[in-house]
């Protein structure tokens, strides 16, 4: 599958890779350059591969309260909220933002790889509620514009008033209705724009002209990893509950969401493993699947879920599940990187914090 911006990516010389069945740009000029454009200025990502699901009807709130882990009743019209979608065992089917577009109308943005699964799950669970679940992924192209200058540039270049962080606004972009969301996946301020696919090409061009740097999935991954945002398929899976992933803050068990009993149990009893962030001390770049060893020992205590060279910290870094009793910040560990032991230390999250 291709997004409406596919030709634009090729014209900019992007390296294109398959991502969940989509031909997506992984980088244009280089991951480090794109990464630093987002940390220092403004970068834009074509995230049109992400899915959108609309939930509408008198029972929309009750339904979402049942399927989403967070307290959806707290979201006012124009608000946005992060949640996980759990199965009965508390395993994470997906993680997502829900936006309240109207009194009885919500939009949920899904991960590309999970869109069909989410849709089937939501459809099935909605039967006992007076709410309609609609796949609206074809209605939107999606652009994430991120970085300290992202808001200013978008507001000026497109002439739109942008909502504050964790809010959503109905706006006009390219003379078509669009949604502007104060959300992102980079640890920087910025917006995500849900556009009419027909205007995606001219809007992309206007933002390019305004100096926004095109960024691929490579930089998207290094940026999110530095601020320890989990990625579904790596840190989050249907076999892991949100408590061990460190997402207890977005789970409100008292709302009775599907999986809440299991999540409550995990919270009360603790979990065998916990998701930690770590930095390599010295050389070596950790990668997904590398065993985590007890410092100076031969005992495996966990495994890396995501690893990379961190462009901001200029060191190998990542996230891993390790045995909970050894998950304390400061603990010395070793990462087995293809047979070479690389000393590392469990670090506090996020790995990268903005210097103020």
């Amino acid at each position, binding site marked *: 599958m291709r997004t409406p911006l596919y030709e634009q990516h090729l014209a900019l010389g992007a390296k294109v890779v398959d991502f969940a069945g989509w031909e997506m740009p992984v980088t244009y000029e*280089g*991951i*480090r350059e794109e*990464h630093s454009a987002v940390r220092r200025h403004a970068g834009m990502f074509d995230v049109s591969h992400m899915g959108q699901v609309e939930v509408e009807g008198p029972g929309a709130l009750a339904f979402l309260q049942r399927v989403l882990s967070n307290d959806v009743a707290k979201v006012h019209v124009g608000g946005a909220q992060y949640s996980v979608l759990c199965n009965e065992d508390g395993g994470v089917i997906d993680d997502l933002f829900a936006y309240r577009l109207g009194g009885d109308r919500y939009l949920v943005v899904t991960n590309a790889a999970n869109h069909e699964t989410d849709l089937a799950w939501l459809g099935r669970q909605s039967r006992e509620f007076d709410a309609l679940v609609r796949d609206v992924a074809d209605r939107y192209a999606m652009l994430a514009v991120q970085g300290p200058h992202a808001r200013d540039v978008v507001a000026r270049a497109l002439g739109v008033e942008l909502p504050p962080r964790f809010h959503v606004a109905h706006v006009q972009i390219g003379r078509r209705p669009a949604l502007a969301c104060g959300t992102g996946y980079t640890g920087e301020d910025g917006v995500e724009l849900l556009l009419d696919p027909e205007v995606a090409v001219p809007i992309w061009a206007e933002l390019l002209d305004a100096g926004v740097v095109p960024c691929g999935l*490579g930089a998207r991954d*290094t940026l999110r990893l530095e601020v320890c945002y989990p990625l579904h398929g790596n840190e989050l899976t249907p076999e892991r509950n949100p408590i061990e992933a460190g997402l207890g803050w977005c789970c409100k068990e008292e709302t009775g969401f599907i999986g809440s009993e299991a999540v409550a149990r995990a919270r009360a009893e603790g979990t065998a493993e916990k998701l930690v962030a770590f930095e390599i001390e010295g050389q*070596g*770049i950790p*990668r997904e699947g590398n065993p985590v060893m007890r410092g100076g020992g031969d005992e495996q205590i966990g495994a890396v879920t995501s690893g990379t*060279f961190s462009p901001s910290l200029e060191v190998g870094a990542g996230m891993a599940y390790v045995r909970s009793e050894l998950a304390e910040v400061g603990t010395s560990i070793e990462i087995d990187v293809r047979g070479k032991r690389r000393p590392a230390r469990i670090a506090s999250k996020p790995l990268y914090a903005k210097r103020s």
Partner: protein
Amino acid sequence: MAPESSEGTYPDDLRYHEEHDWARVDGDQATLGITWYAQDSLGEVVFFDPPEVGATIQKDSSYAEVESVKAVSDVIAPLSGEIVEVNDALQDAPEKVNEDPYGEGWLVKVRLTAPEEAETLLGVQEYRKMLDR
């Protein structure tokens, strides 16, 4: 990837291996590195994990790793030999592999144990033809 290969440079005094490595043979010694195509596919090199001086390497087998932000890649030995020198400058400036893959971005020097193997490597025309396929 044909358009990519036409952008690249491939000196005609080198011998090439199908796995995108080059060898500059000089008597019983050779300097080894990765080709323009290899560095371009990999992206910005951020780490070179070299073999030790004195180690023996085997033609067609991995002898080192180069890593970009996103991926790690084995470096395949185009020839067999013993490592006599590694490019230490790459520890602080691994990006030289991208900027100058046939010059300052060389990886190792070896004393060849089977110099006749060089005959089996590709010339520049053959290597380019392979890339264009």
